[in-house]
């Protein structure tokens, strides 16, 4: 397989509603920014991957053909990828396959979602249709409810607190304050988060990502092509993809999947109860694969920043553990230690994550790729008009995309090659 680089990215400002533009025009805006940033023209793109989550939000099927047409990419090869909340991450994986295999030299991976055409309650219902509609949807009908039960179990098993979840939300809002592409620009205290309206115990409103309208894209290229286009090379050096049972209640309890360099004794205290409903097995498996390829045996010190799928503050905390940033059960202590803050050892969601940037589902996993690319190209200042969020000496970043209670999870490792 050939080595693959991310050469440029583009994104629209995520917003609660953007009725001024259709989805295809939002994609075009993101695409034009990526082309301009790399100094490329339309003819330089030889394939594309389109990602969006749900046909229900707009009642338009085959939206991928509408956008492919609008972007002027016909008759070049294209494919739609969909996998719930991990749609964007899976799209990057598909784009990588296109380029690494030699089928394509320069592949556009673009994604979007326009969620504002239905009410928030209806939107939540559509998202919940991505849970088992025979057994789970009729009972709960709400993803925040499913994640809340996972958070509650994590608290029970490990002594994690709602305050620790709140700290994560505050951190992400604080970061997004300096991200002009983020939907939310507000400052909250831990008390504000804890005192906010309850959505599903223990999760309050600011601990949950929001519905959003937005588009994002990255352009991937073979190493050979990339070298002709940019000096600031960024390689994809590791990819992982894990899955888990659709129904949360069917998750097994057994031994932890070990990351490269870990010994089983490290997790003896879990007594074979992992993951149950407290952790994401698919995330762990995705990290294992990606770390193995990228040669990572000490993620806390070998990764300089991470953009993780914080659909909920609680799932960010659980993800610290799945990614091996800390041991299972130590996610709460990890955030209290300050390590995932912008000035910490391993900044997590320096962009503000989904909680503050918004979660236009098909665009989100690609958004992470855009922000990670800018970190590694050291161009945060150019794109955000401030270097406040630039992680100093960022050489290696992790992006993590995640679907409904961990059914699909992708991890990509991006590394600076300049």
């Amino acid at each position, binding site marked *: 397989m050939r080595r693959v680089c991310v050469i440029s990215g583009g994104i629209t400002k995520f917003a609660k509603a953007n009725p001024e533009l259709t989805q295809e025009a939002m994609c075009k805006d993101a695409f034009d920014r990526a082309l301009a940033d790399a100094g490329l023209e339309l003819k330089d793109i030889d394939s594309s991957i389109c990602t969006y989550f749900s046909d229900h939000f707009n009642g338009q099927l085959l939206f991928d053909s509408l956008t492919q047409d609008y972007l002027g990419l016909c008759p070049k090869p294209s494919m739609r990828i969909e996998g719930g909340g991990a749609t964007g991450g899976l799209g990057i994986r598909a784009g990588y396959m296109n380029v690494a295999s030699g089928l394509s030299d320069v592949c556009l991976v673009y994604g979007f979602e326009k969620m504002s055409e239905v009410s928030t309650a209806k939107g*939540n*219902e559509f998202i919940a249709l991505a849970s088992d509609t025979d*057994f789970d949807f009729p009972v709960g009908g*709400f993803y925040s409810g499913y994640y809340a039960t*996972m958070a509650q179990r994590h608290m029970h098993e490990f002594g994690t607190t709602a305050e620790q979840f709140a700290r994560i939300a505050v951190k992400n809002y604080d970061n997004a304050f300096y991200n002009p592409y983020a939907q939310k620009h507000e400052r909250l205290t831990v008390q504000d988060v804890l005192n906010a309206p309850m959505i*599903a115990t223990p999760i309050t409103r600011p601990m949950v990502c929001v519905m959003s309208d937005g588009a994002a894209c990255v352009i991937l290229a073979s190493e050979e092509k990339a070298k002709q286009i940019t000096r600031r090379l960024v390689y994809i050096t590791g990819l992982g993809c894990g899955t888990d049972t659709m129904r*949360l209640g*069917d998750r*097994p309890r057994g031994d932890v999947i070990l990351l490269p360099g870990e010994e089983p004794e490290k997790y003896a205290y879990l007594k074979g109860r992992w993951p149950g409903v407290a952790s994401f097995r698919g995330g762990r498996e995705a990290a294992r694969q990606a770390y193995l390829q990228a040669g990572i045996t000490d993620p806390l010190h070998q990764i300089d920043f991470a953009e993780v799928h914080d659909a909920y503050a609680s799932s960010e905390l659980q993800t610290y553990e799945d990614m091996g940033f800390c041991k299972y059960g130590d996610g709460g202590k990890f955030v209290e230690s300050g390590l995932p803050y912008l000035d910490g050892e391993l900044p997590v969601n320096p962009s503000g994550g989904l909680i503050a940037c918004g979660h236009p589902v098909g665009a989100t996993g690609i958004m992470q790729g855009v922000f990670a690319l800018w970190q590694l190209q050291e161009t945060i200042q150019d794109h955000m008009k401030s270097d406040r969020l630039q992680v100093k000496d960022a050489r290696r970043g992790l992006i993590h995309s995640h679907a409904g209670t961990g059914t699909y999870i992708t991890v990509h490792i991006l590394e600076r090659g300049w």
Partner: protein
Amino acid sequence: MTDVYSFQPLMVRRPYRIEYIHSYGEVSQFFLGLKEQKLYASRCPRCGATWLPPRRDCGKCGAKCNWFEAPTEGKIHTYSVLHFAGEAFLNDLPFVLVYVEFPGIDTVFLSRLVGVKPEDIVIGMPVKARFKRLVEWNANDVYFVPA
């Protein structure tokens, strides 16, 4: 006639309704069983895995499972009190989701808990199944109360 929401940009209301003739297929017995006030689960004869909700085919080893009657008393494995929901369930708020663990069943089962104040719910609390007399032929035909 088209209902206009805004003229700049032009936004129109576009309703969409559909009715599915939905089949529960190979797990129909579970839903029929709720009317008999029974929880039908499945057990794999090859690897011994037990499933509730049931599966015809074992999710661990792929063998064909056998039906058996699950206990109707268990313990709360985890829970959440919901104060917001998808549109279809807004009228039910607030309500409590529980995952129930049963002796001899490997999985935990999602259901609703009623008849207890939210502040009194604890993980590990014994609960028992209740069945609706007027069944609606869906997963809500069973719910749980403190045992």
